[in-house]
């Protein structure tokens, strides 16, 4: 009966096909090959730094130091889509711990970094964090992505263990409770930074938005950019939407071209932004392109080709920045990893900073247990991190951080301008 066919079977098959395709779409898009937000990010461009509203207090017992080395946990994406960021984060964290132990540790005791792999997956990140907590770590560090951190952070909150996220920028992440911290800026800060840069430094007046409607990260970033850019006096001439995985942007660009923008803010991730830049040039649009830290990958130079050269985006840290802290960090990195002489992504520096914040708090901690350590982390005031000063005191887990605007050149990212948290009109 192979050739037999009737309509109802076919309809069933077609329905199954669509259903399957939709399910497929979801799993297919989920791979968060991006460092920041993988699952819902905040869409509200509220300032995070100003709020000192008290967060939920954890009622968990936490862990206590007993004997031997002091255990600190790290959850890193050693495998999966986030591997390039996970590897750098782990290397940065190891560097900080080695340095700390070399300097004598705390009270003559050394710190041991226990590392578990999240395989770039939220569920696995959660079980990795739970395993570390079971092992008796006083604090957990990680992750580079918001989706994974949200899961880990929940477990840590329940058990009363402080968690310091590395590169998770989702604005509402720290609402989990008083055990959740981070060392990076939030999405509500990047948008205003790029709006200031576009309006004041590049002199752009009419900007169009290209938003990835499937990524809450992108929609939130577009919104915060738009709010600030209009406040500064600029005009958003149009907003066009595309979706993750889209390959052809010609129809959207034809619409944009008729609105004569002088800049395009592309708030999505690099796999789409690269080809988009090529197509912007081919569509005959002479515009500046700008974006958020979703552009941060060396692959964007290949996918964007010549069209991406000379465009700007917001980042956490840059190897070429002319600051003593960056130079010292790069020297240490080179000495520790001669085969990999510079961190390939910003997560090297942020992993180092997150770990350093925990270790610094350990020195100030009143006793060697999770509760006292959490209080000490919360008290972090103007800590000199590689990626800028970190102040967690009174900031509800979200440190007001400096952001860096970088320019893409053939040789990679070049530092253009740094913005301190108080320099940005929001």
């Amino acid at each position, binding site marked *: 009966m192979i050739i037999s066919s009737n309509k109802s079977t076919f309809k069933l098959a077609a329905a199954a096909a669509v259903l399957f395709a939709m399910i497929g779409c979801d799993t297919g898009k989920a791979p968060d090959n991006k460092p920041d937000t993988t699952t819902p990010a905040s869409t509200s461009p509220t300032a995070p730094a100003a709020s000192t509203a008290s967060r939920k207090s954890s009622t968990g017992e936490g862990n206590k130091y007993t004997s031997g080395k002091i255990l600190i946990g790290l959850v890193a994406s050693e495998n999966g889509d986030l591997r390039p960021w996970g590897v750098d984060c782990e290397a940065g964290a190891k560097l900080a711990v080695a340095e700390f132990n070399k300097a004598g540790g705390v009270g003559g005791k050394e710190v041991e970094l226990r590392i578990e792999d999240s395989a770039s997956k939220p569920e696995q990140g959660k079980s990795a964090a739970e395993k570390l907590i079971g092992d008796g770590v006083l604090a957990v560090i990680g992750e580079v992505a918001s989706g994974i951190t949200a899961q880990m952070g929940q477990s840590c909150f329940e058990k009363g263990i402080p968690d310091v996220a590395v590169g998770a920028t989702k604005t509402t992440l720290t609402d989990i409770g008083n055990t959740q911290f981070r060392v990076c800026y939030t999405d509500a800060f990047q948008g205003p930074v790029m709006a200031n840069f576009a309006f004041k430094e590049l002199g752009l007046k009419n900007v169009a938005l290209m938003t990835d409607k499937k990524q809450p990260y992108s929609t939130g970033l577009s919104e915060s950019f738009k709010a600030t850019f209009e406040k500064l006096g600029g005009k958003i001439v149009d907003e066009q939407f595309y979706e993750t995985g889209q390959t052809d942007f010609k129809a959207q660009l034809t619409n944009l*071209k008729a609105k004569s923008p002088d800049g395009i803010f592309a708030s999505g991730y690099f796999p789409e932004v690269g080809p988009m830049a090529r197509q912007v040039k081919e569509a005959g649009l002479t515009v500046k392109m700008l974006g958020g830290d979703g552009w941060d990958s060396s692959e964007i130079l290949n996918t964007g080709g010549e069209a991406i050269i000379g465009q700007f985006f917001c980042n956490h840290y840059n190897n070429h920045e002319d600051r003593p802290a960056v130079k010292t960090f790069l020297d240490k990195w080179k000495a520790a990893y001669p085969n990999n002489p510079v961190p390939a992504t910003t997560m090297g520096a942020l992993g180092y900073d997150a770990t350093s914040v925990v270790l610094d708090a350990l020195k100030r901690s009143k006793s060697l247990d999770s509760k006292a350590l959490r209080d000490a982390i919360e008290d972090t005031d103007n800590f000199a991190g590689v990626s800028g000063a970190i102040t967690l005191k009174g900031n509800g887990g979200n440190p007001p951080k400096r952001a860096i605007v970088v320019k893409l050149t053939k040789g990679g990212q070049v530092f253009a301008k740094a913005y301190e948290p108080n320099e940005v009109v929001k």
Partner: protein
Amino acid sequence: MHLVPNLLAALNFSTLPEQLVNGLLLGAIYALIALGYTMVYGVLRLINFAHGEVYMLGAYVALFASYHLGFGPNSTATSSSLANLLIMLFASMSICALIGVIIERFAYRPMRGQSRIASLITAIGVSLLLQYGGALFLPNSPPPSISENVNPYRGSFVVPLSSPPPSLAIAVKQLGPEAETKNKALQDYLASHPNESEFSLSPAAQPLKDQAQDAQRKLDDAKRELANSGVNITIRNGDVIIFFTSMVLMIVLTYLVRYTKRGRAMRAVSHDFDSAALMGINVNSIITFTFVLGSALAGAGAMMQATFKGTTITTFFGLLPGVKAFVAAVLGGIGNIPGAVLGGLLMGLAETIMVWMGYSRYADAIAFVILILVLLLRPGGLLGSDKVEKV
């Protein structure tokens, strides 16, 4: 009732010609992939869900071929030729054909005597296997893409439909020198002050930058006004190549199916599988032939998409185009070859028109709306037969 004038006001008819061309060019790729779905369905009554994954593998083959031709991730090669593109096209088509045959031989043929739903689930299984299994072997983090340098035909050309008033061109010419002088003044200042950069100027130099930007903006605005005042169509060279290659491949396919012995046998198998076998047609070899043709077309589509549009390649590369091409095949009438081409072109147009109307947020949903409408109103598709097939 005020909705209608609002809708009309948002429409910009000067971009409509370009959008229609965009739609046709976009549809050509859908048509190419849809042919693979429709041919396999025509012969086996099987919806080959793994077709999108064959397409994905075709993109990887093109990627590796480009590496082999010297356009690897760290290469500095900048000049390429038509020969390189043809090598990549041939590699993708032939290896995809081989993969299609392997899938048919080892996944579908053992299931041929079983119920239809078993074959369908096998197809879904193969699709998932290639998506997730492929991720273990194929580079996908960060997702690679084919270097733009392999394509010697970059850029685009403009077809003017109406010419802009000459005064605008004169304005652009007049504004040019001023912008140049102001920019040069800024560059000279920067060259003589090594401690300052474009984004960290001393307050004294700020006016210099403002003047340069103002002059440049006036020039750019005039240029944009010039570009937008007439009705014209900007077409990318890559899209033209994709369109014509697709058309040539479809003509070759039509020739093979209509005028060769194998093609006639294929049509016979499609018409009545058992009777064709009784008439002495080697059904297995015809099915293999069908998979060769369909997969080779998918390979060609993938190579062109990945090369000319710069798309990043992951193992999910075939998912979205696969779904859209499937809808295109159903729209045209699955099992019907001209129907797949028509369906593909209509899908491309429908998506582009949605964007043109200002609904880019819903452009991808149109595929599913069309699918539902087709299944409700004309289950056989536009060109398909509507009669109930015998069971």
